[in-house]
Structures are given as structure tokens and as C-alpha cells.
């Protein structure tokens, strides 16, 4: 049996009476890209900090790459790259010097590690620029460069797309996908850019008020999303009566829009059209819609 890259068991972190993370269990297999979704204050960053040994759980324990985390454990971090919250750098050092500092603390002496990651993150034009003068986007790239410097087996990224423009977001997504697919890197990512998560993750966990409330494989997303038939008519009242008579249950109507969620309506929209045409109120718009990840997320955390 393969050892999980991350195995968190019943992690709880309390500050006084407040449980910031509450009985959270998480298992991430090697090579997975696991996305942790949650609103601000849901407990994502505290979870990530516990998985990096920065915060000690009140109860529960975590194993990272086979090493159970305890104070003083440090050898495992040579195999882990991370970016937590907003990126930070020594402002008076250049980009290359900041990376050299990170490289030395990771025991990497060869200059090529720094050069390679500068090239990979497209930081070459800024290599000699002081970090304090970088734009937010380039500061984020520098933070990611520090995380990738040592070619980690496990990458833990907290909101990695923060501050990046759309091209930068796509670039980081491609980079993470490449690391996962070609180098087998396991990735745990938290993000609020849900569309990005949908394109990136192999598995998604939704965290709310410190609890992991839903987990699903990204390619099973369709099973978790709701589908609905949305149609617009000129005479809504007559249309609703006709639909009710035909055994449908309009769940939400607004203006001249009627929404049906029953599987018969969603599966056979042409039958709905036939009913409405027969009742003399044919629809002028008819769409089968489905939840996007954002809607699903909000439905899960705000039932």
C-alpha cells in the first residue's frame, strides 16, 4: 500500500473556546492535486500551517511524506515546498539573493538551482532587482520560486494565484499541472479562485468553520452538481399552471423565468416545450443549466 503524501487524522486546533480547525481528517495520495476550498476564516491556512509543523494541533496528528510531525522534526522539509499566505521576501536583497538565502537554508549550494528556478518562473528580468521594489505579481512568483527551488515531492500552496494577472494564473496552473503529471509532485492547494481549482485539482475538499464538509474527485464533479431547466415565457401564470398539470414542479420563478429541477424536465426539455406550446405559451428561451463549482461550494457551506 502506498504511503499517503499527507495523512491528517482528526486534526483540531482550538484557541480558547474557538475551534479554528475541528476534527479534520485528510488523506492525499502521492501525485494528487488536492484543492482545499473555503471561505475566509474557514480554517484553510491554519490547516496548512499544521501540515507544515508551524502550528501544533490541539489534538490529532499529521504525517507528511511518512514523517509524523512533532516539534523539532525538520529533515522532511527538504522534500516539501510551500507558500503560505502572502509572499514575503527580504526587501533589501535582490530576487536572486532572496533565492540564494532560501537555497542555502535548504542545503543547496549550487548556483544552478537559483538560475533554473528564476528561468522557470520567468523572473530573469528581475533577478537583480531588489525584492522590495517588485510588483505584487512578481513577489508572488518569487514566493513560488522559493517553494519550487529544491524540486519538492510535495508542494503546499496557500492561495498561489493571489496578485497574479490572468496570464500569470494560467501560467502557474500549467506549471503545477506539469509538476504533477511529469514529475509526480503531490500538490495541496488552497484557493478562492474556484474556476482555477476546477481546472487544476484531481480532488476537492470543502472546509467550512474548521470542518471538512465535503470531499469529491474533480472528475466526479458532475455527480455533485445540480442541473436545472430554465425557461422564459411571455405568460408565466398560464405556463406554471400547464407545467403543474403536466406533473412538473416549478421551484423558482422570477419575472418571466421559470426554473424546473425535476429529473424528467431536465432530462426531456423537449417534452416541456410540447406542454407549453400545447398550452399556448411557448417559451422564447430554454436552457439546461448546471451548478458551477462556485454555486456548488456556496450550496455546501451555506445550506
Amino acid at each position, binding site marked *: 500500500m502506498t504511503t499517503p503524501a499527507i495523512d491528517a487524522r482528526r486534526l483540531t486546533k482550538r484557541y480558547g473556546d474557538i475551534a479554528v480547525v475541528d476534527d479534520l481528517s485528510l488523506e492525499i495520495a502521492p501525485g494528487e492535486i488536492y484543492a482545499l476550498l473555503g471561505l475566509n476564516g474557514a480554517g484553510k491556512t*491554519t490547516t496548512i*500551517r499544521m501540515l*507544515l*509543523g*508551524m*502550528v*501544533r494541533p490541539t489534538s490529532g496528528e499529521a504525517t507528511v511524506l511518512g514523517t509524523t510531525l512533532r*516539534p*523539532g522534526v*525538520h*529533515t522532511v*522539509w*527538504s522534500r*516539501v515546498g*510551500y507558500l*503560505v*499566505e*502572502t509572499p*514575503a*521576501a*527580504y*526587501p*533589501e*536583497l535582490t530576487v536572486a*539573493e532572496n533565492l*540564494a*538565502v*532560501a537555497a*542555502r*537554508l*535548504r*542545503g543547496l549550494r549550487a548556483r544552478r538551482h537559483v538560475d533554473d528556478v528564476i528561468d522557470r518562473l520567468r523572473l530573469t528580468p528581475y533577478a537583480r532587482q531588489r525584492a522590495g521594489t517588485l510588483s505584487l505579481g512578481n513577489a508572488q512568483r518569487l514566493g513560488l520560486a*522559493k517553494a519550487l527551488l529544491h524540486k519538492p515531492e510535495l508542494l503546499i500552496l496557500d492561495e498561489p494565484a493571489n496578485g497574479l494577472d490572468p496570464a500569470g494564473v494560467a501560467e502557474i496552473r500549467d506549471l503545477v499541472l506539469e509538476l504533477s503529471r511529469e514529475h509526480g509532485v503531490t500538490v495541496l492547494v488552497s484557493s478562492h479562485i474556484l474556476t482555477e481549482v476546477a481546472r487544476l485539482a484531481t480532488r476537492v475538499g470543502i472546509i467550512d468553520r474548521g470542518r471538512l464538509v465535503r470531499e469529491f474527485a474533480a472528475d466526479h464533479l458532475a455527480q455533485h452538481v445540480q442541473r436545472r431547466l430554465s425557461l422564459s415565457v411571455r405568460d408565466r401564470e398560464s405556463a406554471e399552471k400547464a407545467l403543474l398539470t403536466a406533473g412538473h414542479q416549478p421551484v423558482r420563478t422570477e419575472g418571466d423565468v421559470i426554473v424546473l429541477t425535476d429529473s424528467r424536465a431536465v432530462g426531456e426539455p423537449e417534452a416541456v416545450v410540447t406542454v407549453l406550446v400545447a398550452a399556448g405559451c411557448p417559451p422564447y428561451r430554454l436552457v439546461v443549466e448546471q451548478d458551477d463549482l462556485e454555486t456548488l461550494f456556496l450550496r455546501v457551506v451555506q445550506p
Partner: protein
Amino acid sequence: MINALATEFLKARRSRVPWVTALAFTVVALVGGLFMFILQDQGRARSLGLLGAKAALVGGDADWPTYLSFLAQATAVGGMVVFGLVEIWVFGREFSQHTAKDLLALPTARVTIVAAKFAVVVGWCLALVVQLLLLGLVIGALLGLPGWSAAAALGGLVRIGGIAVMVALLTTPIAFAASAGRGYLPGVGVLISAVFCAQIVAALGYGQYFPWSVPALFSGLAGPEQSTPGGLGVTLVLLAGVAGAVATGIWWRQADQDR
């Protein structure tokens, strides 16, 4: 450890703070030299406008023992402020600039990073003292101060060096405050409190029992009639220094780093 030392050295070298501290110690040596210059001939000083027409400077003769004693006292009191600021910068910056989180999950142990920081602080403080001594020797020679003897000068230099080591030891609790308080201000608060309390406790006559008063007492700041704190004072300084360093190491290793 070498890697951690190299990174701490680079961070310090690329900052302006070492230059500011070097300037502060240069000013100390120059002010000492100015006092000696005035004491040499107060009439000359008045005519040059360095001393008010009716003012007189008291506090010793213009000679090497007085000058070295001044430098020792300046190291005891001014050193506490400057070394304390070095400590605050080295530790507090990681929190004020949010770079601490990048030091927490590394193959280099956190206590190694803390040890490297302390080593850089000690090296930095000793470099400042060496600078002060060299400047002091040059200024004293330029002023042609009388009373030079190799033995007395060596004694004065050893005393200044010893006081500097004690002061550097006494700044470790400030590193703890800057770490546990996660920034510059808690460190500054502890520094001000330590300097203030040191003056008060020494004035009350209990300085030998309060570690932060001990270097000043050794420097002779309390006057020639006051005896030096002796072994007890040195022991208390050592205990305070070790306690501060150990507490800082334990805090970095054990405490929740949630900001």
C-alpha cells in the same frame, strides 16, 4: 550551521543597520575625544565656542585612564541601546517583514537559525567594540593624551571588551521579546524598560543584584567609591543571557507560528 550563518551574514551585510550602528559608536568615540579636548584646556574650548563662557566641565583629567573609562561607560550604557537594537532588528524583522514563515519548515532546524542569528549579533557587537577601541586609540593619540602605559591601556581595553560581552549577553531577552512579540515594538519596550530599570536599581544601591545594572557598575559609572559587582554580578549576567538565548530557541522551536 554554516549555511544559516552565511544567510544571516548576507542579510545583515545588505542592510543599512550595520552602518547606522557603526555611526553611533563613531559618535561615542568622537564625543569622548571632544570631552578630552575640552578637559585638556577649558579656556581654549571656551575661545573655540565648544564650552559656554561661564561653563566648566568636571569629571576627571584629560588622560588615557579617564578616556578609556569614558569609553567603558559608554559601552555599558550606549552599548545596551545599540546592541539591543541590533538584536531587535535581527529577530524582529522576520516578523515585521513576514519572512519568519519562510524559516519554519526547512531542513535547517529552527534552533540552528536562532543560533546563527545570535552568532551574527555577537560578531556584530564585537566588531562595533573593536571599532570603538581602534577609534579611541587613534583619537587619544591625536589628542596626545598623557598617562599612557601599555599595562593600563591593555587593562582598559580588556575592561571595555568584558563589558561589551556582558552587554551583548544581556540583550538575549530582548531577542526573545522581539520573537514572542512578533515584531520590533515589544523588543523596543523591553530594551527601554531594561535601561530604565538598570538606572533606577543602580541608584537605589542594589545594582549588583540586577543583571542590567552590572555592566555600568563594572564600567565605574557609579563612581570610584562604589565597589564592582564581582562574581555574583557576572553570574547573574551569564544567567540572564543564557536564559534569554534558551527561551528564544525554545520559543522558535515550540510556539505556534500562526501569523
